[in-house]
């Protein structure tokens, strides 16, 4: 992975810088969605792929980030609101994690699924959250005096935020915390015997993932300029898992590749048939059963086999 990574990142940055010059508004919006899904899938994979914590409720934190923007976009500029959304999501993750992490394995998966559903239901019932119609007319505001209403200006903000987010998650990935997270996934008891406080480790992972899930949600709200209860919907917890799985859960970059493919494919299928979910399900099933290591891991082990 070492060698081409620098080149790929450089190409991606170049692409991001020039995109507004040759893409139209709809295309820009599509690519914004792709970027946001990348960040979101990375945050989920930190939990599921690296920490081995099977959360099915990441939408809770995505939604909190999105609704924070929906509620406060008129009052606060993005430079305040984006970090604030992260903090809110992190605090929520701390509260949820402190209770939910008392369970393990599938019980935990179900509890987190329920947490997402609670918030989904809440958006329908709490008047200030706008019910089924959600909160429309989100104001992107200004950054350094530049109005972000224009597609190009917002594209740069979005790309910068996602880029910084990926950089931060990459740092976490390569940090002592990140290494011990993966050690814990492999053998929790051995890790405990090395002197690691597993509870703190799990909670830490949950909070970091929650914060970046919140950032993804906040960007999503800005990009769409409307936020609806769909931000909390349980499919929103499931989608990033599919993305991470397609790309490869044991790798860092897998979710990025998976998000690109998944967003592209669903977009294409959704235009053709209302039953697109059927085909997505079948592709997903194929990956879980036949290729659970995902594309990037497959590529890596293939290369290792050839070089040996």
């Amino acid at each position, binding site marked *: 992975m070492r060698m081409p990574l620098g080149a790929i990142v450089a190409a991606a940055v170049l692409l991001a810088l020039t995109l507004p010059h040759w893409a139209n508004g709809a295309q820009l919006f599509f690519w914004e969605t792709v970027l946001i899904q990348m960040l979101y899938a990375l945050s989920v994979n930190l939990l599921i792929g690296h920490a081995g914590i099977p959360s099915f409720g990441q939408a809770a934190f995505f939604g909190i980030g999105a609704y924070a923007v929906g509620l406060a976009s008129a009052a606060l500029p993005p430079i305040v609101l984006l970090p604030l959304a992260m903090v809110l999501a992190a605090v929520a993750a701390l509260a949820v994690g402190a209770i939910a992490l008392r369970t393990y394995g599938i019980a935990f998966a179900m509890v987190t699924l329920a947490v997402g559903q609670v918030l989904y239901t809440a958006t329908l019932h709490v008047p200030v959250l706008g019910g089924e119609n959600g909160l429309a007319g989100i104001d992107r505001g200004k950054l350094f005096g530049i109005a972000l209403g224009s597609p190009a200006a917002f594209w740069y903000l979005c790309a910068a935020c996602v880029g910084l987010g990926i950089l931060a998650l990459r740092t976490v990935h390569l*940090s002592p915390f990140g290494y*011990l997270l993966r050690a814990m*996934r492999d053998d929790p008891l051995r890790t405990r015997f090395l002197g690691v406080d597993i509870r703190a*480790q799990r909670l*830490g992972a949950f909070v970091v993932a929650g914060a970046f899930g919140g950032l993804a949600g906040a960007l999503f709200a800005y990009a769409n300029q409307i936020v609806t209860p769909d931000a909390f919907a349980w499919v929103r917890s499931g989608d990033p898992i599919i993305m991470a799985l397609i790309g490869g859960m044991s790798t860092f970059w897998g979710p990025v590749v998976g998000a690109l493919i998944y967003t592209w494919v669903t977009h294409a299928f959704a235009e053709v048939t209302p039953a697109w979910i059927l085909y997505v399900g079948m592709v997903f099933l194929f990956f879980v059963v036949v290729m659970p290591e995902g594309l990037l891991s497959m590529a890596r082990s293939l290369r290792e086999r050839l070089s040996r």
Partner: protein
Amino acid sequence: MSAASEASTAGALCVRDLVVSYGANRAVDGISVEVAAGELRAVIGPNGAGKSTLFAAIAGEVAPASGSVVLDGVDVTRWAPHRRVRYGVARAFQVSRIFPTLTVRENVLAAWLCREGKAQLWWRAVDGATHARAGVALDDVGLGALAERRGDSLSQGDRKRLEIAMALQLDARLLLLDEPTAGMSPKETSATVALVESLWRRRGLTILLTEHDMSVVFRLAQRLTVMHRGRVLCTGAPAEIRNRADVREIYLGHG
């Protein structure tokens, strides 16, 4: 004898009147063992003699009913396992417990980061010097060439090497090796014996090991303790033990 070059020379272990019961069964029934700092001691005895239970009690995995475990003059009998790890008790398991999906280097790195108490440091990537340090530690046990392989791709012998390398990361004074050559080919066995011996000589560790393979025991150990039915039968130099009739009776005769 072994000159201490790098690590601390301490590691004197004193086990006194130790009793560990599983229900009505006294697996360890009033054992006293003294191991001097820097000694390489083997504990032998037939299956069910209580060797593994003794090790577990020293590592803190089982709580003794009575008796004491004292390391360098400090009574650690009631300490939790992780506290003993920090105090210098490292253990390699009979069935190697390494992290299977991490690379060999990352396995060693994980142990070192734990030792440094950095488990919750998430805002800075592990630096190059620390990675290099892990590489050196791997060279030390002869695994340098396999650093980037996944843990689960290693052979039994290499797994044991890796586990020993991890144990050493914890700055051990006392290394507990439970059947270090179990399940190994003759070639792997002799490589592991050489490794243990060289580490012991270079680092001045106290090593306590159990082993079924008598050739390994007689090659490595300075002194032997023979256990039988939860008790110590005798302790002495290898040659001495070899010639005792009662030991032959219960152990070598069956082996």
